[in-house]
């Protein structure tokens, strides 16, 4: 028994060594590196992102590749752990010698890799949300999702338009919720609104009734906002309905996917959130340039994977397309040339919005790229 086990282990080490060493060979294809949270607590981000990358790399290769060279996707699963994300970033840069990185599902994973990326001087398009990723601008770092700050601005603007200025805030203690909370507090101050209740829940909590009761019992709350992702916001939504709270309810873009509707069920009725138009492609006016892009992505994704699209996969779509655009524009995979080209992206219409980058804007979106949706009759309805 022991012997076989040892032999197995030996084989294993051999494979491992081969895997670690071999990848250094120079290659014809353009190597796109990616590290995503494919499993673990952020898998609902990483999973659709990986699927999107895989399918579009295939598609691009079938159509003849980029600059006449095929694309090769090298990807790792960071399990939502920032340290392993950083390690995989290092592996991509140093061992796999990729030409560009499109990845980083969470802000933690992205930020942990940023120092490395900056030092190695390699273009990096992050798929994570927090505003700190591109503010202040980092030379080599770009990102595709709107920042959580924009989400906060969009939500609070909608609240203000409806005449609500006193907000009850509940947020997850994970990276997304925590950063969203900070942004909401700041934006509210700037907009002259007041956060009168401020509660949190941890990602694995199964009941948020206590926190919601606290918010409900706070004097003068006019609307409630939940900043979080995962299953937590769905539980918040259901607890909200159970408690019979009648106040207007907002969620963040962190739950902008159809699976949220399935989890929250009837309880979600009437809540609003900022989201990519991906959730309501058919409601967009024909004049909207995004309409065709969004419809295409949605139908292709759903046909290929037999699963609903989510906003998060859209981030990866835009990331990949921006990379391809930049490489094409640069005519080379030279890092600095590609980076320059990324910075010069102007008016690229993606799934998430219309990107116009610049030396002091590595995100390239504005808050209006978010649409405010409302849940009506169990489906998304475009409000504005």
């Amino acid at each position, binding site marked *: 028994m*022991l012997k076989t086990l040892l032999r197995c282990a030996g084989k294993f080490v051999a494979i491992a060594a081969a895997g670690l060493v071999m990848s250094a060979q120079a290659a014809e294809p353009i190597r796109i590196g990616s590290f995503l949270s494919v499993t673990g607590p952020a898998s609902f981000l990483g999973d659709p992102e990986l699927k999107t990358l895989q399918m579009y790399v295939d598609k691009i290769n079938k159509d003849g590749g980029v600059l006449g060279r095929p694309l090769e996707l090298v990807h790792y*699963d960071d399990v939502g752990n920032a*340290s392993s994300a950083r390690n995989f970033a290092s592996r991509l840069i*140093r061992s796999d010698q990729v030409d560009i990185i499109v990845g980083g599902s969470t802000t933690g994973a992205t930020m942990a890799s940023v*120092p490395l990326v900056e030092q190695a001087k390699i273009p990096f398009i992050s798929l994570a949300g927090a505003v700190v990723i591109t503010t202040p601008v980092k030379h080599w770092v770009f990102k595709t999702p709107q920042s959580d700050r924009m989400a906060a601005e969009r939500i609070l603007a909608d609240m203000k338009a409806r005449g609500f200025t006193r907000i009850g805030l509940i947020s997850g203690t994970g990276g997304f919720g925590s950063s969203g909370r900070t942004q909401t507090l700041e934006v509210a101050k700037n907009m002259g609104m007041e956060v009168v209740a401020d509660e949190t829940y941890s990602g694995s909590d199964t009941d948020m009734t206590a926190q919601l009761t606290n918010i409900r019992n706070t004097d003068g709350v006019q609307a409630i906002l939940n900043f979080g992702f995962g299953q937590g916001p769905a539980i918040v939504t259901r607890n909200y309905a159970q408690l019979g709270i009648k106040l207007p309810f907002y969620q963040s873009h962190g739950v902008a996917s159809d699976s949220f509707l399935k989890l929250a069920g009837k309880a979600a009725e009437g809540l609003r959130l900022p989201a990519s138009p991906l959730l309501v492609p058919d409601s967009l006016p024909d004049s909207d340039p995004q309409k065709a892009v969004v419809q295409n992505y949605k139908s292709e994704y759903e046909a290929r994977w037999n699963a609903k699209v989510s906003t998060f996969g859209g981030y990866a779509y835009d990331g990949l397309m921006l990379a391809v655009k930049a490489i094409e524009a640069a005519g080379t995979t030279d890092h600095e040339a590609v980076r320059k080209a990324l910075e010069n992206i102007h008016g690229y219409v993606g799934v998430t919005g219309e990107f116009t980058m610049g030396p002091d804007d590595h995100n390239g979106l504005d808050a209006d790229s978010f649409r405010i949706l409302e849940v009506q009759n169990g489906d998304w309805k475009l409000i504005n």
Partner: protein
Amino acid sequence: MLNRFMQSRLRGLMVLAVILFSLPVFLSNPFHYELATQMAIIAGTVVGLNLLVGFAGQISLGHAGFFGLGAYFTGIMTGHYGWSAIPALVVGAILVGLIAWIVGRPILRLKGHYLSMATLAVGFIIAIIINNERQLTGGPDGMPVPVFDVFGWELSPFGTYSLFGIELNGSEAWYLFAAAVLLVAVWLAQNLIDSPIGRALRSVHGSEVAARVVGVNTARYKSLVFVISAVYASVMGGLYAHFQGFITPAVASFDFSIVLITMVVLGGMGSTMGVILGAVVLKLLPQILTHFQEMEAVMFGLILMLTMIFMPKGLLPTLQMAVSKRLKRRAGGQQ
């Protein structure tokens, strides 16, 4: 001669030194160096944890808490307050040692699963505090940590250095530094084990009653080893923070505590070289298993389970036993 060497107290240390300094022959790019550096730092942590778990027989399921405290203390002091790295590491270690001493006294009276529960709770509380104190720690998204410096001289993974006329890049320099730190950590640990204090510690594991009746103040020694292992974790955590350049609360998480204790048990409790092997294996395994994609978790769980079932004493002790059995058999055959 060979016999003298085999009997030598420091043979493990010598073997380790030879391996550490000949390893660069097999490392072909900065990523490999980086992995090796992390292994060395984690191995140092585990050597400290092994003093508590392997030698004194006290379980800790919260050790990452001390690692995280060390990492964040240096991160905060060098990042927010402009301290130099060395004083930050030293003061951090003293503070962590103090915290370990304060919480250690009451919880080390507990035994078995209750002790693991209490250490787990301590680790969790530390992780929750780090996660929640956003102004200081950056919250769940983590915080950047400045480059490691020794009174103005900086050791950056991205710099270039020269040592005895040999050009080194930052990754190589860090690796050599981490390897040296690990050797010192192992040397100190072995000195401790092989001393009256070490005997007292091991007796707490071997038979606490026997220890007490010959005059060992077991409570004091348990506290002592708890503090020492926490200090190890703190220093290594600080180095890890500087090396990584960015830390998140994951360094203090329950998951990481489990990883640490698994390294100890997998490598071989009570075997300093064994736990280093455990750290290497457990750090390497995920890198290897990534080739298996969705099967990764299944494979990892299976390997962990099977190894522990068939080698309950841990990798190195089991291998050593197998080798010595074979040697004996061969010797027997020759007679």
